[in-house]
């Protein structure tokens, strides 16, 4: 690592010098302060259009140009920052980034954070973002200022200033002792790939020991090399093409696509690299679609599992199922507000939603559905009515608008796995759906209640004759299914808008899943959810979201014509009853 203040711009190349000289010529002499910053300030008024075109390149060049009197440059840079003119500010940023002044990094970060204030007389202060309250530091010295300086205005950012700021900060960061910062800086330089950064990259590569940062630096260097016109000789360009090919991704693709001139060998290598990158991109995009499909499938699975249980055991279609899901989401909201901690609230909401929705389910079964056994269509209507009542009740209690359910920190964000972007909340929901399904299977297979439920499913009358209290089993089954709906609500609150209408959006889809998978069969529900989820997400890019959904619905209607009882129909004597 070069020492701060000595490294950057140490060995000028002719390439970097020439435009600087042109720029200096273009700038009229202004006393002794013919600094890089001043030269750049003149740039916008310079009669040379070429210079304007190569704006960002020039900024880099200025950054890397040999600068003898660093203190003087820094002073001029500070003066430019205080000038109030965007071009001068940008030039000042660049000059400061190159100056190696000990205060430069702090000041530039203050500028990026909107906490840099300027005085008309040239004074420069670091304060707070809010305004003139609080205490200020002198930007040049870092000394605290006793009383708030008068006549302050913020140093504002334009896009041009931001560009210069990013470049300066990245170059400063390359010397940072922190590995992640060096890595980020190298990646940022890959994105800008301005030709002038090449010497710095070379030097950083020579002294870098961390393999990840080395790779990023090499990639940035390759991108820089291949963006240069004319292209460097084959000996340099071919390894660069190989580096970019190995890196892959859209930015690398764009740079390689730009390699049109030059040697046939290079063009050939670039074309092959393009094909290889395209193939990988396509494969990753298929993998991404699969991930989204599985994610949607797990959401559908959660929403449909409870329905599969209630419908499977009792032949009851519960149209209020979606509202139980919605109530589960509201339980999450309440738990989070009561505990004041999103993470704990979410964890508490899991058992709480199960209990609340389970209790509501038992109440529905005892109060409504048991009077309607053997009349499935009437049950459908009555539970639809119930869904309207529940919806309106929640609307009266919590208001009709979306409520804010917080995603805890450990569930937000995304990780990149190769070309895949895996959002953590969706991953968590997939895991959660798997856990719920496993738990439910265990309950159905390993507990006495599960045994009784299955007995009632297969032959209600026989089960009753064997001494199973079918009404109790019915109530508990309905409670279980409703509790699972509540769990689905907890999960959905993390990815969807939570409003009283939440359930309606899922009810038709969940029915499709249950009908598609076959009634009363958890694995059928699982297969149905996964198939529908993936089919939806694969059709979406081809046909558009809405048309994809329509196609899925039509296919489903056609499927039911062929297999009226789903993919995995129940078999046995009790089926027809």
């Amino acid at each position, binding site marked *: 690592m070069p020492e701060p203040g000595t490294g950057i711009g140490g060995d000028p190349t002719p390439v970097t010098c020439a435009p600087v000289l042109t720029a200096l010529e273009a700038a009229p002499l202004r006393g002794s302060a013919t600094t890089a910053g001043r030269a750049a300030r003149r740039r916008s008024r310079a009669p040379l259009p070429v210079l304007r075109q190569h704006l960002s390149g020039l900024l880099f060049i200025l950054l890397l140009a040999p600068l003898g009197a660093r203190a003087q440059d820094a002073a001029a840079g500070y003066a430019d920052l205080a000038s109030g003119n965007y071009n001068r500010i940008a030039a000042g940023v660049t000059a400061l980034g190159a100056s190696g002044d000990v205060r430069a990094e702090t000041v530039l970060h203050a500028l990026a954070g909107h906490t840099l204030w300027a005085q008309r007389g040239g004074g420069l202060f670091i304060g707070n973002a809010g305004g003139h309250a609080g205490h200020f530091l002198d930007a040049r010295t870092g000394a605290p200022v006793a009383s708030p300086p008068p006549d302050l205005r913020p140093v504002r950012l334009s896009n041009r200033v931001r560009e210069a700021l990013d470049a300066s900060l990245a170059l400063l960061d390359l010397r940072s002792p922190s590995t992640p910062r060096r890595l980020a800086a190298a990646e940022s330089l890959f994105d800008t790939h301005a030709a002038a950064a090449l010497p710095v990259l070379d030097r950083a590569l020579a002294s870098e020991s961390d393999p990840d940062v080395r790779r990023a630096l090499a990639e940035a260097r390759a991108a820089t090399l291949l963006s240069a016109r004319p292209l460097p000789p084959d000996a340099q360009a071919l390894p660069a093409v190989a580096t970019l090919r190995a890196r892959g991704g859209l930015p690398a693709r764009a740079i390689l696509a730009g390699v049109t001139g030059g040697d046939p060998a290079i063009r050939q290598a670039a074309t092959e690299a393009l094909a290889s990158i395209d193939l990988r991109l396509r494969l990753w995009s298929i993998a991404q679609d699969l991930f989204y499909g599985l994610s949607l499938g797990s959401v559908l699975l959660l929403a449909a599992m409870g329905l599969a249980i209630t419908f499977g055991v009792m032949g009851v279609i519960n149209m209020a199922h979606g509202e139980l899901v919605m109530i589960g989401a509201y339980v999450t909201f309440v738990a989070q507000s009561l505990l004041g901690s999103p993470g704990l609230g979410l964890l508490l909401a899991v058992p709480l939603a199960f209990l609340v929705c389970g209790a509501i389910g038992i109440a529905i079964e005892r109060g409504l559905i048991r009077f309607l056994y053997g009349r499935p269509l009437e049950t459908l209507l009555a539970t639809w*009515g119930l869904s309207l009542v529940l919806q309106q009740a929640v609307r009266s209690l919590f208001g009709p608008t979306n409520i804010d359910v917080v995603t805890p920190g450990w569930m937000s964000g995304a990780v990149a796995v190769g070309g895949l972007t895996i959002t953590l909340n969706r991953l968590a929901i997939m895991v959660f759906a798997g856990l719920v399904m496993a738990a439910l299977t265990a309950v159905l297979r390993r507990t006495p209640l599960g045994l009784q439920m299955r007995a009632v499913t297969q032959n209600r009358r026989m089960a009753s004759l064997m001494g199973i209290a079918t009404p109790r089993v019915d109530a508990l089954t309905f409670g279980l299914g409703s509790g699972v709906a509540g769990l689905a609500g907890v999960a959905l609150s993390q990815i969807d808008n939570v409003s009283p209408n939440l359930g309606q959006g899922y009810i038709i889809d969940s029915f499709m899943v249950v009908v598609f998978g076959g009634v009363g069969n958890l694995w059928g529900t699982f297969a149905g959810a996964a198939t529908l989820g993936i089919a939806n997400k694969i059709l979406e890019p081809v046909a558009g979201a809405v048309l994809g959904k329509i196609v899925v619905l039509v296919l489903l209607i056609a499927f039911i014509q062929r297999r009226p009882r789903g993919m995995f129909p129940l078999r046995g004597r009790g089926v027809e009853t």
Partner: protein
Amino acid sequence: MTGVRTTALACVVASLLLAGLNLLPAGSALHLPDFAVGLAGKYLAYAILAVAVDLVWGFAGILTLGHAAFFALGGYAMGMYLMREIGARGVYGNANLPDFMVFLSWTKLPWYWHGFEHLPFALLMALLVPAVLAGLFGWLAFRSRVSGVYLSIITQALTYALMLAFFRNDMGFGGNNGLTDFKDIAGFDLHARSTRASLLVLSALVLAGALMASRALLGGRFGSLLTAVRDAESRTRFLGYRPDHVKLVVWVFSALVAGAGGALYVTQVGIINPGEFAPAGSIEAVIWVAVGGRGTLSGAVLGAILVNGGKTLLTGLLPELWLYALGLLFILTTLFLPRGLMGLRAGGMRRLSLRLRARSDAGAGAAP
């Protein structure tokens, strides 16, 4: 099906009366405001839909959760005619293209809009399109013996898919906004009092016609067969009948009736948009029939008018309460009034006659 003829007659007479009251001078004490005529027309269109639902649910045992699809398709056919009738009077003044197409910078009319400038064609389509769709759907569904809750769910999926489709701008039906801003019908100003009164009476006539046609269809041999299919489909099949054909006939006829209702609805409400396809609307139509009394036809008319009247009142006075009321209506009707208001009346009559007979018997016993 007692009293279907009376119901039909009552509807026509009532509509004539309302139209007449509306045509009285505004100062008169008996004058009926214009909005009431529009409301009555809307209720009658809904009553036609209810009759259609009752035909399949009450008489064929098919709980349809997607009949609003046929209603809305009829409505869209009529809306397309009304849209073309606007001509160059639209905002963009384009005589060949409806406003929304100009807005989407379409250059020519899609092929399926051709012919809709003629009223007879549009009317034909308002009946034919729902009937063909129902025929296709019913043929597939009944042939593979999809029944019960499964059938209900796929009817719901049908209307849901259509709703999503009609929301798309590319479909060429105005997308989200649907078709609206109509000017006139067959040369008569749609906003004129006389036109609106005539449409009200026309709706009543169509409703009466639907009722009488249904009565004729259900009255004879076919009606008995339909009842047999409803109550014991397998047994009917084993006797050598084709339940799928029987169901298909009544299903298609019902879709036709619903389409006619939709066409009348659009002329009087002045807008048709994809919201009409919403599954909730179809289920609401079922509750009208349930409230009135399933399998009676007259009950469907009664239920549609009462529930929608209640909706108008409640949403005006206490909007928050409407969904509670509707939800409770579903629950209470299915729990306590399985045969609807008509059942109440029939039950009341029977109880009354039983009591009278018991009294006369007791009188006869005491006499000697």
